[in-house]
């Protein structure tokens, strides 16, 4: 039995974690056969934690986020949010999806403003917050462009801006920086950490970049390939506030990176090299 305790600072309520996977399984019914994507997973994320998730491609990371968001129902077990099972779209989370799900008929500005619009934020305040956010993700001047007119990386940034702009309680982010150049990536990592430190939102952050996971996270969960299980659950004990620009030179960084790499490696080894 590998039940591990994770020391996390559940600031507000301590009776239950904010997000909890209670022996969750996901079985997809395929065209010809069905198969198990997630197998009896049990993970909990306490309030305010910055939790990074890494794992091989196709192991079920996006599936997990979809469950927390209530867009997907687990085949077995329960996903609990703030103590109650998730049923239907969970409006308390903000979700930066892997695919940029922008509304193609809305300009960038109106895409980013959408959640504010839905929450009844006034026009003037909306415009202000949207512009500020566009500036943050480096898209000032593209407010009137339509998604079709943006590059892949720019679209992804709009998705990010759209989620950050309304400061949700929980941010689910599925490779938000995957399509960005390393410089911009670092800048945005820095911004995200600052926002997180200010708002103390709970973050579940999927990435393929182990360095990114170590630099940003309070904790990194390493998943195995399908049927997916947790192979390592590591608390990142690099103290905060961290500077994402220099954290890589922290002595613990290399060790943690190494440890994660080791945990992940057997999962993929041999695959494709055969």
């Amino acid at each position, binding site marked *: *039995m*590998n039940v591990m305790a994770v020391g996390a600072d559940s600031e507000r309520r301590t009776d239950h974690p904010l997000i909890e996977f209670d022996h969750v399984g996901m*079985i997809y019914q395929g065209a010809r056969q069905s198969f198990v994507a997630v197998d009896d997973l*049990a993970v909990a994320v306490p309030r305010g934690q910055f939790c990074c998730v890494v794992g091989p491609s196709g192991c079920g990371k996006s599936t997990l986020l979809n469950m927390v968001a209530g867009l997907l129902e687990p085949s077995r077990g329960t996903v609990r949010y703030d103590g109650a099972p998730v049923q239907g779209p969970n409006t308390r989370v903000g979700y930066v999806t892997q695919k940029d799900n922008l509304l193609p008929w809305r300009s960038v500005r109106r895409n980013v403003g959408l959640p504010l619009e839905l929450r009844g934020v006034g026009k003037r305040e909306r415009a202000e917050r949207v512009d500020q956010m566009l500036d943050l993700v480096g898209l000032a001047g593209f407010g009137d462009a339509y998604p079709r007119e943006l590059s892949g990386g720019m679209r992804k940034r709009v998705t990010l801006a759209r989620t950050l702009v309304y400061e949700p309680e929980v941010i689910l982010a599925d490779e938000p920086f995957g399509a960005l150049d390393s410089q911009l990536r670092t800048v945005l990592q820095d911004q995200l950490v600052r926002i997180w430190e200010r708002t103390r939102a709970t973050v579940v952050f999927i990435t393929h970049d182990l360095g990114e996971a170590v630099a940003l996270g309070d904790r990194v969960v390493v998943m195995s390939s399908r049927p997916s299980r947790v192979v390592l659950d590591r608390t990142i004990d690099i103290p905060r506030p961290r500077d994402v620009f220099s954290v890589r030179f922290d002595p613990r960084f290399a060790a943690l990176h190494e440890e994660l790499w080791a945990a992940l490696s057997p999962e993929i080894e041999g695959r494709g090299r055969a």
Partner: protein
Amino acid sequence: MSVIAGPMEAEAAMPAEALEADGRERRLRSRRYRIVVITTRVLLVAAVLGFWQAGSGTIINPFWVSSPSRIVARLATWLGDGTLWANTVATLTAMALGFTLGSLAGVVVGFTLGRVRFLADVLTPFVIAVNSLPKLALAPLFILWFGIGLQGKVVMTSLVCFFLVFYNTFAGARDTDDELLGVVSLMGAGRRDRLIKVIIPSSATWIFTGLRLAVPYSLVGAVVSEITASSEGLGHLLKTSANTFDTAGSFAAIVVLVVVALVINIAVSKAEGLISRWK
């Protein structure tokens, strides 16, 4: 404090069982759903028929609306003396031919104009013009050109289908993702390949919507041309009944039409289902 647990070893064998159980539950749920749907439909039909039967002769003059029992009796008579079969076959023949020809033409022209912008720009007004002609008013010309028999009916029916399928195919062809087309071109796809391997499958939903629209209209087209000019068919039966104030007969013919339309629609849905398995 939060607790994280990996899979319990004891449950390593779960997936296979889980699959079984899951599949069974799913099948059960979907069967239950279908039963509810069908029950609701049956109840709705029963309510309408009950009201009709009860109201006919009490609050409504049966001269205008007949009654379900009389209609059933009439259907039985027609079934017995062969009237039903002969006329249904006549209408269905016209309809099937018209539907096939019209839809085919609609798909072909739709794709052509949908992908060749110049043609579309030039011809659109003409298409609209022809489509806005009231075919009923052109009946004399139709008769003059195509006669009264099968040919006339088929022309009328295919004209009706053509436009419905054409508009939707056209929109579907236009809606095809240009990026996808570009990428497939790079792989060496010619005009024909692009059409067959990209444009047609990607327009499938559109085409099927057009076809589904066309089913009732093709039936209506065939029947209308039988109503105006014919010597057989469900439309003929309908008109004869109407002209002799035989309301039960009129409704009986209509019932047959509706049944035919439903059956054909189910066929179209099944075809669409087979083709859109990827959705």
